[in-house]
C-alpha cells in the first residue's frame, strides 16, 4: 500500500494521491504522487503564488534592475527582505522594491496612467538604473491593465532604458511554479538575442537555475574561472539584466534548478540549438560529476580532473570529519521541490545521512520521478504538504534535523527538532565542494546543539542530587 492516507487526512481522502511511502521493489512510476495540481483550500498548504515565483525567486535577483510591481502595496512589501541573495555591486536587489501602490480609484478607473508615471518616476529617482522588470499582480490582471502598451510608451520616451514585463497574477496556476514558467518563456521570447555579448573564451556557457543564495554563484564561478569557461549569463544569480539578453551565444546551457529554469534551457535548445546539460551543484560526488560533464563537453577533461583533485584535497578531509559525526542521522527535507532530488542522495553518499521524509511545495511529477528514483525505501514523499501532515509524519519518522524554511523551523523547534534553512541556508553557500562542507557543518551543529537535549529534559524529572555537608 505505497500511497498513504494519513489519519489527519481522513476528511480529505484525495490527499492519498499526494503521499507516497516507498516500498521495496516498487516501480516509482506506478506510485507517483500527484503534483502541480490545485491546492485543497483550508489545508494550511505551504504554497506561494505565481507572482512570487516570478519576482522573488527569479527576476528579483538581478542586481541592476528596477523591480516594478504593479499592484497594491502588499505584493511589494511581502517580497522584500525575504531572500538571501547578495550581489557584488552593493545589493540593490536586496535593498529596494518598487510598487505602483494601487488604490481604489486606480482599480475602478484603470491603473495604466499611474503605472506609466510610476515607471518614469522610478527611472528619475535613480537615474543610474536603466533596466526594469514590470510584474502584474492579482488585481491589475483582473482589471486588465495593458502593461505591454505602457511599457512600449515608456521605452519610446526613454531610448536608453529596457523593460521586461511579466504577467504573473497570484491566482495563475497552482503555485509559484507558474511564475517561474511565465518569466522563463517571456524572457526567451522577448529578450534573448537582443544584445550581443562580448566573447572572451572559446568555452562559453550559461549557468541556469542558480540564484546566488548566500553566494552560491560566487563560489561556483571560481570553478569556471579555473576551467577558463566564460559564463555568459547566470540565470539569475548575481546577474545583470543585459547578461541574460545574450544567452543565445553560449555553446552550452548547464541547468541546476530544472524546475524553476528548465524551461528556458529547453527553449534555447529549440530556438538556437544549444545543448542542455543538467547537473546537480550540491554535494561532492555530484559537483565532481557536473564538472566532469562540462569539461568533457568542452574537451578540457584534464583541467576538470585537476580542479576536482585540488578541491577534494582541500575539502574532503573536512567533509569526512563531519561525515563521521553525522552518519546515520535522520533528515527530512521540506522545501520547494528540486532540492529533494538534488540533496537526498548527496547527503546519503557524502555524509551517511538518511533522508526519511521529503515534501515539495511546487514540484511537478517529473521532480517526484527523480527523487523517488534517488531516495530511500521507507521514506515519505509528499506533494503540497500541510501542517497536520507534518506533525503526523514527524511522529512516524522522528527526524533528527529538518531542512525547511524559517517559519516551519520555528514550529519544529517546539517539537525539539532543530531545523536548517533549506531555502536561504543557515551559513552558506552550500553549493560546490566548499559549500557542502558548510552544509555538513550547519547540519552537524544543528543535530548536536546541546540546547535541544536540554529541551527534551523535564527539570522536574531530574533526580535531585543531595549535597552532603562536609563532615
Amino acid at each position, binding site marked *: 500500500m505505497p500511497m498513504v492516507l494519513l489519519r489527519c487526512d481522513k476528511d480529505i481522502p484525495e490527499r492519498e494521491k499526494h503521499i507516497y511511502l516507498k516500498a521495496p521493489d516498487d516501480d516509482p512510476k506506478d506510485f507517483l504522487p500527484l503534483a502541480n495540481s490545485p491546492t485543497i483550500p483550508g489545508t494550511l498548504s505551504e504554497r506561494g503564488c505565481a507572482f512570487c515565483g516570478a519576482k522573488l525567486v527569479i527576476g528579483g535577483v538581478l542586481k541592476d534592475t528596477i523591480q516594478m510591481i504593479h499592484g497594491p502595496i502588499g505584493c511589494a512589501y511581502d517580497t522584500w527582505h525575504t531572500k538571501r541573495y547578495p550581489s557584488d555591486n552593493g545589493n540593490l536587489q536586496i535593498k529596494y522594491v518598487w510598487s505602483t501602490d494601487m488604490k481604489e480609484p486606480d482599480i475602478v478607473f484603470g491603473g495604466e496612467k499611474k503605472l506609466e508615471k510610476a515607471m518614469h518616476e522610478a527611472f528619475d529617482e535613480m537615474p543610474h538604473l536603466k533596466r526594469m522588470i514590470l510584474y502584474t499582480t492579482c488585481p491589475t490582471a*483582473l482589471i486588465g491593465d495593458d502593461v505591454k502598451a505602457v511599457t512600449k510608451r515608456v521605452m519610446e520616451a526613454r531610448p536608453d532604458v529596457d523593460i521586461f514585463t511579466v504577467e504573473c497574477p497570484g491566482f495563475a*496556476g497552482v503555485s509559484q511554479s507558474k511564475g517561474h514558467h511565465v518569466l522563463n518563456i517571456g524572457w526567451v521570447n522577448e529578450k534573448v538575442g537582443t544584445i550581443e555579448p562580448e566573447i572572451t573564451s572559446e568555452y562559453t556557457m550559461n549557468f541556469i537555475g542558480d540564484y546566488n543564495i548566500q553566494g552560491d554563484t560566487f563560489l561556483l564561478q571560481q570553478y569556471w574561472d579555473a576551467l577558463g569557461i566564460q559564463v555568459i549569463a547566470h540565470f539569475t544569480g548575481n546577474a545583470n539584466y543585459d547578461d541574460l539578453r545574450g544567452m543565445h551565444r553560449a555553446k552550452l546551457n548547464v541547468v541546476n534548478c530544472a524546475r524553476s529554469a528548465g524551461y528556458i534551457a529547453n527553449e534555447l535548445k529549440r530556438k538556437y540549438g544549444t545543448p542542455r546539460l543538467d547537473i546537480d551543484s550540491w554535494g561532492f560526488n555530484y559537483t565532481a560529476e557536473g564538472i566532469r560533464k562540462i569539461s568533457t563537453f568542452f574537451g578540457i577533461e584534464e583541467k576538470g580532473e585537476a580542479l576536482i583533485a585540488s578541491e577534494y584535497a582541500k575539502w574532503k578531509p573536512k567533509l569526512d570529519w563531519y561525515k563521521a559525526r553525522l552518519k546515520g542521522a535522520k533528515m527530512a527535507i521540506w522545501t520547494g521541490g528540486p532540492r529533494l532530488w538534488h540533496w537526498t542522495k548527496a547527503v546519503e553518499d557524502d555524509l551517511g545521512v538518511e533522508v526519511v521524509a521529503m515534501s515539495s511545495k511546487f514540484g511537478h511529477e517529473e521532480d517526484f520521478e527523480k527523487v523517488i528514483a534517488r531516495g530511500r525505501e521507507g521514506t515519505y514523499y509528499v506533494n503540497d504538504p500541510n501542517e497536520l501532515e507534518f506533525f503526523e509524519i514527524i511522529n512516524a519518522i522522528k527526524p533528527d534535523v529538518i531542512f525547511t524554511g524559517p517559519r516551519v523551523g520555528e514550529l519544529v523547534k517546539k517539537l525539539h527538532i532543530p531545523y536548517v534553512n533549506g531555502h536561504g541556508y543557515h551559513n552558506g553557500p552550500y553549493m560546490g565542494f566548499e559549500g557542502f562542507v558548510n552544509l555538513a557543518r550547519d547540519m552537524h551543529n544543528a543535530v548536536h546543539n546541546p540546547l535541544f537535549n536540554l529541551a527534551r529534559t523535564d527539570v522536574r524529572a531530574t533526580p535531585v542530587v543531595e549535597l552532603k555537608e562536609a563532615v
Partner: protein
Amino acid sequence: MGCEIKPRVRVGVINPMYDCQPAGAQYAGIGIKDCIPLVHGGQGCCMFVRLLFAQHFKENFDIASSSLHEDAAVFGGRKRVEQAVQVMVQRYPNIRVIPIITTCSTEVIGDDIEGTITDINKWLTKGFPERKIHLIPVHTPSFQGSQVTGYNEFMTSTFKTIATKKTEPTGKLNVFPGWVNPGDVMLLKTYCQQMGVDATVFMDTENFDSPVLPDKSVESHGQTTVEDIENSSGAIGSIALARYEGAAAAEYLSQEHNVPCVVTPTPIGIKNTDELLKNIAELTGKPIPESLVRERGIALDALMDLAHMFFADKKVAIYGHPDLVIGLAEFCLELEMKPVLLLFGDDNSKPKKDKRIKALKERTDVDIEVVTNADLWELEKRVRDKTPEVDLILGHSKGRYIAIDANIPMVRVGFPTFDRAGLYRKPTIGYRGAMELGETIANALFTHMEYTKNKEWLLNVW
C-alpha cells in the same frame, strides 16, 4: 515653531513602510484562541504574511488560504471559501472562530462574503450541531488603507459579529492595546493586576512569545477567547491605547452596549503612561498603587541620567504606525530630543488631523515635518541629503539599510523588528517601556560614539 504636514508627492512607492490591509487583519486574527484566519485570495497573501510574523516573533502562526486559482478568479471564489471552512472544521476539532479575510482579488471579483457565510452557517448547524463556529466577515481589500486600517477593520468586524448581545456586568475592563508586542501585553496585565483591575486585553498576544516545553506542546497563538469577546459588552469600561488600531472596536461597544470608552494617548513615555493610569483609575475607581509610583520613579531615575547629558537636542526621524510615531515623538520631547521628521506610511487622512500632532507643535521650539503616505525612500533621500539632518532613526527593520548606509544610529521599534533579537519581549509602553527604550537609545548612541570614535572618552567617566 512650525509643523508642516505634507503627503508624498510621487505616485509610486519605493520601499513601503507598511504591508497591505489583509496583513493587518491577519495580525489581529491570530490573537484569538481556537481561531485560524482564512485569507480569501491568492496563496501568497497568506504565505508571506505568515513568514513576516515568523520573522518578527520567531514563532509559527496558523493561517489558512482559500487558494484562489484561475477558475475562481473568473467564476467567483465562493466555493473555495465553503470548501476551506469545511476542511478546517473537519480537521481542526477545536476550532471555534474562522475570520474570512478578503484581499484585493476577491474584492475585485466581488465575492459575496456575507451571503456565503449565511449559507455556510446553515450547513454547519446541520452538519456539526454540537459545535458553534463563528465566521467573521472581514473586508480588507489591499487597495485601501494599509496594515494599520486592516488591523482596525478586523477588530471592528470581530466585535460587531461576536459581541452582539449585552451581557451581565462582568466588572472587567476592556483593554485595546493596538498593534503591540507580547512584552507590552505582559506589562499591561501587570499594571492592571497591581491596580486590582480585572482586565481583558484585546487581543491577548502574550503567548506570541511562547516556550519550548518538555511535552512539546505548541502554544504560539492568541489567548483571547470567544467568551472574552462576547463578555466585552458587559465590561465596566473600555480603554483604547491606539487611536487607529482597535479604538473603533471600543467605540462600537460604547455605542452599541453603552460601555464607557476612553481613548488614552498611546502610553509611550512617562506622561502618557501617567494618563493611562489616571484613565484606568477613573474608569474603574481603583487608585494608582504605590508599586507603580515606585516603578515610575525608577524609570525617571534612569532617564534623568541620560536626557540633558546625552539626548538633548538630538534630531530624530521616526517612522511607523501613526499611534506609535506620535507616542515616540512625545517621548522624544520628554527626553529633550527633537523629533524633526515624522513619517506615516499610508493615505489615511485622519492622523494628520490628530490633535496630538498639533499639541506637539505647541510643546516644542523645533520645526517638525510630517510626511503622510510616505515610503522609506522618502526617508532615505532626506537622510542622505540631510534635509533635515538627523542624529537618530526610530523605526522598524524594513528601514535598516537607511541607517546602515548613512551610518546613523538606529533603534528598532514597531513592527517588524526581525533584525534584532528578542525585541518582541520588551515593552515599549509604560514606565518600564520608557526606561528600556530610553536606555536602548542611549546604548545605540554610545556604540555609535565608539565605532566612529566621536567623543567616546566621555563614557569613561559617565
